[in-house]
């Protein structure tokens, strides 16, 4: 019996593959990714091809998700942000389903791998930088100067803003990873207590695992939501450069 609460995060190669020196072996996390891709694709494609004016249950679920993401984008980026809808929606659905599937006992939480969240964060932040420079050119460096900053404060403000900018992808990656990891560690610890406590006292931590599991479902949603909102905010910052006032141009 494995004692460590970190045991659920361990990976083992099921099927070693080597692509030109690159190790792309299949492990549990990869399998779960495929499951997520298949689930999301089936749900959304079936809903998308139903196209009924009076929707069925599946279509309603898919429409709710789409409407939810659309709301986030419109709130943070405005009408122009809908260009990024496919990317942001795919990101949200991928992360949400990774989080949720991870809660099924015996499966794996892909988003508890820091490297997975880091790739998402890097892609999102990189995209915001690229878009900012493409849209605004060198003027995009003005994102380091908050509007209304007096000239003599610049030597102070620019480093602060630079740090806050650099913190964005790191916080984005670490937040999701840490939340997913911590939730599962707590579940693992509580369940370990339940097992070792036996029937006399063990029911108490066991009851807590059930409560925590419910909480974790909420967290799975919230973290996917936060990741998506922040993605929209970062992209929106690059899109509008200094606030929403400009998006009327």
């Amino acid at each position, binding site marked *: 019996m494995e004692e460590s609460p970190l045991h659920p995060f361990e990976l083992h190669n099921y099927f070693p*593959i080597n692509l030109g020196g690159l*190790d*792309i072996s299949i492990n549990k*996390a990869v399998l779960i*990714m495929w499951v997520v*891709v298949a689930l999301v694709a089936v749900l959304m494609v079936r809903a998308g091809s139903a196209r009924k004016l009076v*929707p069925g249950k599946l*279509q309603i679920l898919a*429409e709710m998700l789409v409407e939810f993401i659309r709301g986030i984008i419109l709130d943070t980026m405005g009408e122009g942000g809908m260009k990024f809808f496919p990317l942001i929606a795919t990101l949200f659905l991928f992360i949400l389903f990774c989080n949720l599937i991870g809660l099924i006992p015996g499966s794996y939480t892909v988003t508890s*791998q820091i490297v997975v969240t880091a790739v998402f964060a890097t892609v999102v932040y990189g995209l915001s930088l690229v878009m900012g420079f493409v849209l605004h050119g060198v003027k995009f460096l003005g994102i380091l100067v908050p509007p209304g900053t007096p000239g003599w404060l610049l030597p102070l403000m620019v480093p602060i803003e630079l740090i806050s900018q650099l913190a964005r992808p790191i916080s984005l990656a670490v937040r999701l990873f840490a939340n997913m990891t911590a939730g599962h560690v707590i579940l693992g610890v509580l369940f370990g207590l339940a097992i070792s406590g036996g029937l006399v006292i063990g029911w108490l931590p066991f009851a807590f695992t059930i409560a925590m599991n419910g909480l974790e479902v909420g967290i799975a949603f919230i973290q996917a939501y936060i990741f998506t909102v922040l993605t929209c905010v970062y992209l929106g910052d690059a899109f509008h450069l200094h606030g929403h006032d400009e998006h009327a141009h």
Partner: protein
Amino acid sequence: MPQFESHFFSSLIFWEIVSFAILFFVLYKYAFPGILGILEEREKKIKDSLDQAERHRSEAERRLKEYEAKLSAVGKEAEGILLAAKERAQRLMEENEQRLTSEAERIKGDATRQIEQERRKALQDIRAQTTELALMVAEKVVQRSLVEADHKKYADEALEALSKSQPR
């Protein structure tokens, strides 16, 4: 922590990017256009229905106003017709009355004239007959023949006396 075992990084990154790309492509191509399209369609349908309802309502209101205006116009017209009819009846009545009055007047005048004529004629007849009667009576009483002129003279005198003693 097992998550920091860099041994798995390459495979995780590779498959994450591949999976995400596949999912993105599938959703972009087959799911989002349909779902966004139907959402938009439904939105448009609801908006259209609301617009239509609004249009129908204002149309109904307009019609109601129209009918009310028509109704009041008709009422006024009816009133006018009634008034005209009343006036006409009044006029006809007055006309009739006048006509009847004048007719009666005329008939009365005619009758008076006729009566007068008859009376004159009767008087003349009476005069003539009286003359003759008087002559006959005179002839019988006097038993003698007189000259025609004298006869007439006597008769006239007798008549004069008669009409003086009994005027009209």
